[in-house]
């Protein structure tokens, strides 16, 4: 039986109130959105805040809207279920809806939110455990200890970013809106992360209120996308490897631009390099496309080095990298997906 440590609960009804509460309590406060990750983490005593600030009562943070200029705005408290079913998001970012639909299981998708997934704490099999379990091992670098159990002698935490929507949002250049005491500011999602497993965000003490997907350039291309997720079971699990694909193709099905981002490798979601130059100018369905996909898969396998940070054998996960990159590219081209083996 896992009990939550004691805390006081605040239930503000406006963003301004929530920001004021966070400013007043500083590091003693934790924000709770859907609670699907924070509550287990608090039960594991990874977080023991004095005050928990709930966003459940802030109606303005829920829902998806499309602005006149075509920007799709997703409130941070929109549930993953609602994101997965959102037609405007699907039209603009197919990989995002596919990724949201593959997160955890049905109950957790109804509770968990897009903002919570973007701001998810990094995960590691030596960290996401009970206090008793971690104590028996002498704790670890990320919490309470000085030793890394993943990299022998490692001085830098390598807990893995495990949020499926993050690489998908990166492929479409999403912009995040944060509210702090000085008001709102926009942060491009690529600039949110830094590669430190202990805390992999550059933003602290501010509240993520909205995820914006900017309008597409009016260049006559259409968007293709897909998300591939390697996991142990057909539901519930965090990714063992995830890859999001965006392809922009013109009227002749020739790829004009491409972007591939992956997750569950290191402390931040990573963009796979050289993919756009390998795929640009290639026509879908041609022999050249098959060759380009094979080259991309081989390139990805060189770039991605899974560590023993999340569950699942690291060698197996490495062997699956080219498989998932290839299948997800083919799924994006075929307009199918998501890609998962169960």
């Amino acid at each position, binding site marked *: 039986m896992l009990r939550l440590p004691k805390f006081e609960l605040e239930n503000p009804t406006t963003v301004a109130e929530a920001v004021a509460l966070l400013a007043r309590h500083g590091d003693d406060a934790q924000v709770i959105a859907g609670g699907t990750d924070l509550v287990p983490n608090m039960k594991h005593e990874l977080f023991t805040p004095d005050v928990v600030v709930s966003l459940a009562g802030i109606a303005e943070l829920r829902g998806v809207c499309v602005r006149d200029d075509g920007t799709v705005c997703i409130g941070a408290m929109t549930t993953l279920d609602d994101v997965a079913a959102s037609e405007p998001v699907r039209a603009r970012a197919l990989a995002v809806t596919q990724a949201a639909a593959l997160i955890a*299981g*049905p109950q957790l998708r109804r509770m968990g939110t897009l903002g919570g997934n973007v701001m998810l704490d990094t995960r590691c099999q030596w960290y996401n455990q009970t206090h008793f379990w971690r104590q028996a091992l002498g704790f670890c670098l990320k919490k309470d200890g000085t030793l890394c159990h993943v990299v022998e002698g490692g001085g830098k935490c390598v807990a893995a970013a495990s949020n499926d929507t993050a690489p998908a949002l990166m492929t479409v250049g999403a912009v995040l809106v944060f509210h702090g005491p000085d008001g709102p500011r926009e942060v491009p999602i690529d600039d949110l992360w830094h590669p430190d497993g202990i805390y992999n965000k550059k933003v602290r003490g501010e509240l993520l209120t909205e995820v914006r997907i900017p309008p597409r350039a009016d260049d006559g291309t259409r968007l293709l996308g897909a998300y591939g997720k390697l996991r142990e079971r057909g539901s519930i699990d965090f990714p063992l490897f995830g890859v999001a694909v965006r392809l922009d193709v013109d009227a002749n099905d020739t790829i004009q631009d491409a972007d591939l981002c992956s997750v569950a490798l290191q402390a931040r979601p990573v963009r796979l390099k050289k993919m756009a130059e390998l795929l640009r100018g290639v026509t879908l369905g041609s022999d050249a496309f098959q060759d380009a996909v094979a080259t991309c898969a081989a390139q990805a396998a060189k770039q991605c080095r899974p560590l023993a940070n999340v569950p699942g054998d690291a060698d197996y996960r490495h062997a699956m990298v080219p498989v998932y990159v290839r299948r997800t590219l083919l799924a994006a081209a075929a307009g199918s997906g998501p890609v998962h083996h169960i």
Partner: protein
Amino acid sequence: MRLQRLQINGDRIEVAAPSHWTLLEVLRYRLGLTGSKQGCDKGDCGACTVLIDGKPVLACLTLSALCEEREITTIEGLLPAHLRSGGTGPDPVQDAFDRCGALQCGFCQPGMMLSARALLNENPAPSRAEIKDALAGNLCRCTGYTQIVQAVELVVAEAAGSEPEPPAWAPNANPWKNGCAKNGHEEPPARATDNGEGA
């Protein structure tokens, strides 16, 4: 400690509980509603599934203090809700799980049946894939899931008046055919679980 006004299985209940208690703790240890099971207690297993505003969510990850003004249904409320809506006997989901042998130890059943009930309320004729998808967050370590999916399909078939597909172990002698002997359930009392007053 604060006074929480909850609406559980149609009853308005005032209960004093600490802010850091989950809905599952309040249900089990304040109100004596032990039908919602405490399994992994961290969102993996689905044994604590309850309906909040008609949708299955996990009580072990839900703070009770955030459930005020929400309509909560636990497994104890399934039969009374069925009777209130004019039904007789057990809820068809409960009946079908019983007849199909869709359980062994029974620990996953409350969550499993609530997930199934919510699915059928939303979509009275789900496909097998939709049933499996809706139950994906409820783990069962005994049955292998086959009879559980069959039970939901039986509810769907009987509601539509059609013949349910026979199970794989009896392809030629369909045990579900012609409403084969429903178990002789006695008529339950009008209010089988009057749980409003606490433990």
